């Protein structure tokens, strides 16, 4: 039995953290919300109420429309690319071939690196120059006789944002691989053995047994990657600086607030970002915590 005193003691022990999170997460979100409903523009705070006008302006703002579009394109390519590559690598590694450890380490090391480093290096790899000034991957393609692959990367008109997804996939597909590998290892061998005895082909086992069992893993990874791509910021800054064709909400929030001093608008973008992330994450949190065994 636990005494009342112990209950209090337990609560007091976590109280500092609870307070810190309450202030820095929830308090600050509320504060941002309040700023987003204000006229604050310029260096001195101005909390004059202006209703939803910052949000309304955003919905009519062509720049914000570009942001939404870029985020969608980036998300689709980044999430899909990482998932497919990660799944493929995990299936290959799950065959128990030699050198699994080395491959796994190679696929995962980008996770340890800052997006800034990734961005700076890829900025030179994705150098869009052609002709006599050709360099980076384009130069490599040229040397290998793969000229049809030469492209303008992130400076490609309209589709430049898709090129940014490449270093993002480079950085995160190993993560997908690791999670899928854990999922694959959790599938009992007997299931596959039984199917083999019944005469199922390896492909049938994959599509009929393995992939359906991996569905919850896929869902988790999609949510984690999806929320990351909504927040993408560092990588774009490091690859391309702040350019309108590659703009995303996080970047717009930054520029609106700290370069343009449109605090009200910046806060509104922040809140919209939060809402879009919350739509993904809150159901995920409930699902994850509810399905875990009672302690």
């Amino acid at each position, binding site marked *: 039995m636990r005494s009342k005193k*112990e209950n209090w003691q337990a*609560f007091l022990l976590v109280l500092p953290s609870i307070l810190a999170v309450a202030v820095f997460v*929830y308090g600050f979100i509320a504060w941002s919300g309040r700023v987003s409903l204000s006229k604050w523009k310029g260096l001195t705070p101005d909390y004059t109420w202006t209703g939803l006008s910052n949000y309304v302006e955003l919905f009519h703002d062509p720049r914000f429309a570009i942001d939404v579009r870029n985020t969608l394109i980036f998300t689709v390519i980044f999430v899909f690319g990482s998932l497919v590559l990660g799944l493929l690598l995990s299936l290959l590694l799950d065959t128990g071939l030699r050198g699994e450890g080395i491959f796994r380490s190679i696929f995962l090391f980008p996770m340890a690196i800052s997006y800034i480093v990734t961005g700076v290096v890829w900025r030179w790899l994705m150098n869009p120059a052609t002709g006599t000034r050709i360099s980076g991957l384009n130069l490599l393609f040229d040397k290998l006789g793969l000229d049809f692959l030469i492209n303008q990367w992130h400076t490609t008109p309209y589709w430049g944002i898709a090129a940014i997804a490449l270093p993002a996939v480079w950085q995160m597909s190993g993560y997908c691989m690791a999670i899928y590998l854990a999922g694959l290892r959790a599938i009992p061998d007997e299931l596959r053995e039984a199917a083999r005895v019944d005469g199922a082909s390896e492909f049938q086992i994959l599509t009929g047994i393995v992939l359906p069992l991996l569905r919850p893993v896929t869902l988790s990874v999609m949510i984690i990657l999806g929320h990351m791509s909504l927040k993408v910021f560092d990588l774009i800054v490091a690859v391309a600086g702040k350019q309108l064709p590659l703009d995303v909400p996080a970047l717009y929030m930054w520029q609106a607030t700290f370069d343009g001093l449109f605090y009200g608008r910046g806060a509104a973008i922040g809140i919209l970002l*939060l809402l879009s992330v919350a739509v993904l994450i809150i159901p995920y949190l409930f699902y994850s*915590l509810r399905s875990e065994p009672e302690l």
Partner: protein
Amino acid sequence: MTRKRSRLLLYLPLVAVAIFYLIPVYVMLVTGLKGFEEVNLKTMWDLPNGIQFDNFIEAYNKLAPHLWNSINMVLPAAVISSILGSLNGYVLAKWKFKGADIIFPLILFGMFIPYQSILIPLVEFMKTINLYGGLPGLVLTHVIYGIPITTLTFRNYYATIPKELVEAAKIDGAGMMGVYWNILLPISIPSFVVVLIWQFTQAWNDFLFAVVLTSPSNWPITVALNNMAGSQIVAWNVQMAGSFLTALPTLLVYIFLGRYFLRGMMAGALKG
């Protein structure tokens, strides 16, 4: 077709992808190791004629103060948030008080929020308490926004410790802190390693908090590197060497403690 040959075929895609992953490292290293006179965008894929450290020395001279800023900021941030996470995890796994089941998901949500949604208040708050511009403010920020993940990792670990162990110690007269200190803490070392290196990596690699909260002389290395890359003055070869220097500490941690790094990463996916 023999089984052996089909096995060999499996290596083809793996090796191809491995090359894709290693390309940036190759470019960073061969460029960094070339002498200044040898550096040319046109020959960026060629191996250096001889090993020279000009680029690394130049990059180090430019980044050294920021490297130290990063070290001075990351160590306390990682240690403090690990200790807090351990205490929180202990309570939330073994001493659930009333309402703990509501508080835990509320804490966890904090690790997913886009920081753009708290950035303005964070800056204003740091200005108010006079921590804006310096490293202590950045440390505090990393500690607080690190609480969710460190709490989660420790809670999941402590949840695997049998209740009986705790109960037995209580019967022997140990109080809440006694159980923590004598029973759980000694077996938490692996979890501490996991959380410490995870927080180390997160704080080291952070850009957003650093760029908004610190003044140029206090910039950690990621901000300094980005600034260097954005300038027209610093040559690309020095940028490559600088990138390698920036990546080196976390890469070393990954190479030598990869197993723990992996566990930290999996914890972030909740159920993995």
